[in-house]
């Protein structure tokens, strides 16, 4: 397939709508080698590269792009991996348009360098060529426990291992990866890629214990007794929020977490080959406007829904989802019902949802988030018919582990209070990072936090002798 160009920047080839909405295979296909090299050549190799300021893990962006421009693919990959051990994931899900790419000087007049596409190209190329994995670092025997195997935990584990510590990751679910496995769908982030990145971390000598709920299966005291000297908590923000509206427990109403977990982690899209079912009606409404809502809507479509709409209380401009993902969702026929907020769920005598009563909204003055505040228009109630509803309005901190650690200081919203530079918490030797500190954020910021904490853990263990 030819790579179309848009003001010099390559357009990502992707599968046609008709083809992609019938299965869960990946939608964007990745750049071809010639296109990637050509794009890399467009980079100005700035002396003071502004793009790097936008990267939470400080990848040497001109460095790797320069190597790629010279066709030195292996070296380019290694350049990225100096800072980022999960490039195939970041190349797919990072909001580059808000980070590195938004700061690229070329963006001032024309189109910024497609940094994300290039990162993905290199990571995929490496994987396909099977470049060999890391040599096992020598271990000094200091035991570090990582709780949670999301991007924060994986990054912290990998970095701690590279510094010679003996690392074990404990994960509550039966698969490693956190949201990368249970939340983000296959068609956006193939699970085989996540598995491969997890294998890479394991190749560094990291042990992985699945199906262990820290706080329940093992307590902190157990871990201390087992000789763990430092801890990293990367348990994410996995508690689904509901709207607390009448009728919300009707059958057919899912939290996005449940809907996506059934499909991704439990492989409900392959039911009955896999045992976990999921129920998708003819008309699906997804409430929300973030990445989670987009993923839910597009999943519903692939599970056989005829009509899928997104119900969002502001306008498309304020939607927190990545622009590319909103575009892809719309291409696939997902209908955005904007300036609309649910007030009540309607059901039939069997307690199945039949619709959402909504009220129209208009935008008022900006609120603390800087976005204009939505205000209900009195008397504008109407019903959107729906036989499946997915509530995707956000997540909070899961209290399961936190309840067992009363000494751990939390902030007003219930997230862990951690030092921004080191991840240190109120308990010496216990570090935290990712969504459990910041609230729902991004893969790369979770990784950034894992990285910083690894450095601090290393210092802590050295000083502790």
């Amino acid at each position, binding site marked *: 397939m030819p790579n179309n160009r848009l003001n010099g920047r390559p357009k990502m080839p992707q599968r046609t709508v008709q083809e992609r909405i019938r299965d869960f295979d990946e939608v964007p296909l990745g750049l071809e080698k010639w296109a990637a090299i050509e794009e890399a050549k467009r980079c100005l190799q700035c002396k003071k590269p502004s793009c790097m300021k936008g990267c939470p893990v400080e990848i040497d962006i001109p460095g790797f792009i320069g190597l790629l421009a010279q066709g030195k693919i292996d070296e380019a990959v290694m350049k990225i991996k100096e800072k980022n051990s999960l490039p195939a994931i970041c190349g797919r899900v990072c909001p580059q348009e808000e980070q590195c790419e938004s700061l690229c000087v070329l963006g001032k007049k024309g189109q910024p360098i497609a940094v994300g596409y290039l990162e993905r190209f290199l990571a995929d190329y490496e994987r396909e060529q099977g470049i060999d994995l890391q040599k096992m670092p020598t271990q000094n025997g200091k035991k570090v426990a990582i709780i949670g195997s999301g991007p924060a935990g994986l990054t912290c584990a990998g970095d701690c291992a590279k510094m010679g510590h003996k690392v074990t990751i404990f994960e*509550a*679910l*039966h698969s490693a990866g956190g949201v990368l496995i*249970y939340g983000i769908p296959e068609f956006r982030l193939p699970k085989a890629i996540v598995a491969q990145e997890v294998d890479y971390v394991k190749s560094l000598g990291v042990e992985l214990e*699945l*199906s*262990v*709920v820290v706080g*329940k*299966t*093992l*307590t902190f005291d*157990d871990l201390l007794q087992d000789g763990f000297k430092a801890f990293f908590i990367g348990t994410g923000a*996995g*508690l*689904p929020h*509901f709207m*607390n509206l009448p009728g*919300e*427990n*009707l*059958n*057919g109403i*899912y*939290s996005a*977490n*449940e809907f996506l*977990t*059934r499909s991704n982690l*439990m*492989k409900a899209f392959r*039911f*009955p*080959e*896999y*045992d*976990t*079912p999921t*129920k998708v009606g003819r008309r699906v409404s997804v409430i929300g406007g973030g990445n989670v809502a987009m993923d839910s809507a597009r999943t519903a479509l692939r599970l056989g829904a005829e009509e899928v709409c997104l119900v969002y209380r502001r306008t498309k401009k304020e939607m927190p989802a990545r622009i590319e993902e909103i575009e892809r969702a719309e291409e696939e026929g997902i209908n955005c019902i904007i300036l609309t907020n649910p007030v009540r769920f309607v059901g039939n005598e*069997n*307690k*199945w949802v039949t619709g959402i009563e909504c009220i129209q909204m208009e935008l008022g003055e900006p609120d603390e988030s800087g976005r204009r505040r939505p205000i209900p228009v009195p008397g504008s109630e109407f019903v959107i018919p729906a036989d499946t509803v997915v509530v995707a309005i956000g997540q909070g901190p*899961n*209290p*399961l582990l936190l309840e067992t650690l009363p000494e751990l200081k939390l902030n007003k919203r219930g997230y862990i209070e951690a030092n921004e530079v080191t991840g240190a918490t109120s308990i010496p030797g216990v570090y935290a990072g990712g969504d459990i500190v910041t609230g729902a954020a991004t893969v790369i910021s979770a990784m950034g936090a894992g990285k910083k904490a690894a450095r601090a853990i290393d210092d802590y263990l050295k000083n502790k002798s």
Partner: protein
Amino acid sequence: MVKIIKKEVLTPQIKLMVIDAPRVARHAKAGQFVIVRINEEGERIPLTIADFDSEKGTVSIIFQEVGKSTIQLGELNEGDHITDFVGPLGKEIEEKNFGHVVCVGGGVGIAPIYPKAKVLKKLGNRITSIIGARSSDLLFWEDRMQSVSDALYVTTDDGSYGEKGFVTSVLDRVIQKEKIDLVIAVGPLMMMKMVSLLTKKYELPTLVSLNPIMVDGTGMCGCCRVTVGKECKFTCVDGPVFDGHSVDYDELLARQRNYLEEEKRAVENWLMKKAEEGVHHAK
């Protein structure tokens, strides 16, 4: 991976397994449950911890074969392995001396009522137990319940054993006769609803152990939500034991029916696949 070290067929459809799971056994308490996933394709199903031995590191589960996962679990034997066995999950029951506690167990609910009766008995409570089943061949653990109860009543719906009728009629009689401090009921949702309606009349504190459909069992998905009082609770982390008088049973009954068609399809599909494999083996 955990190993099945003992299997016992309690009734044709109810089986007991003793699992080698030291980590789960170490922290297990009465009232808690585990999540079991049989193999890679399996679903995550919740089962109560029916008994545990922290020294030997074992956990007992008892399950009724009602659908694909439980039938398939029932086909496994001593020495076989189960892919995932996560726990102990949920909150334990309050362990103290209440005085006179009536433990009501219906059907497979006898399994989860046993550890509760056992621990409360140890703490000095007087235990009256009422256990019931549809028919005598569905009844198990009468002896075990006997061993932790000061008085034991047995009922069957069809009168094939013990007293003919429902556990609620015996409970009503006990209430008339004796002072009761707490009622704990575990069994089919309809039974827990009937018990709660009855004890509500007498304003007797009542605890029930709910069994909604679950996925993760760690508070991450919200599938197990129930309305208790006016609040939405997640059974897996806030429960599974709740005040019986505050539960919205009708909502929960409807939520349990969510996947009836799919579950039926799962069993049919699986039986067909097994039959095909059987043909291959015969050749």
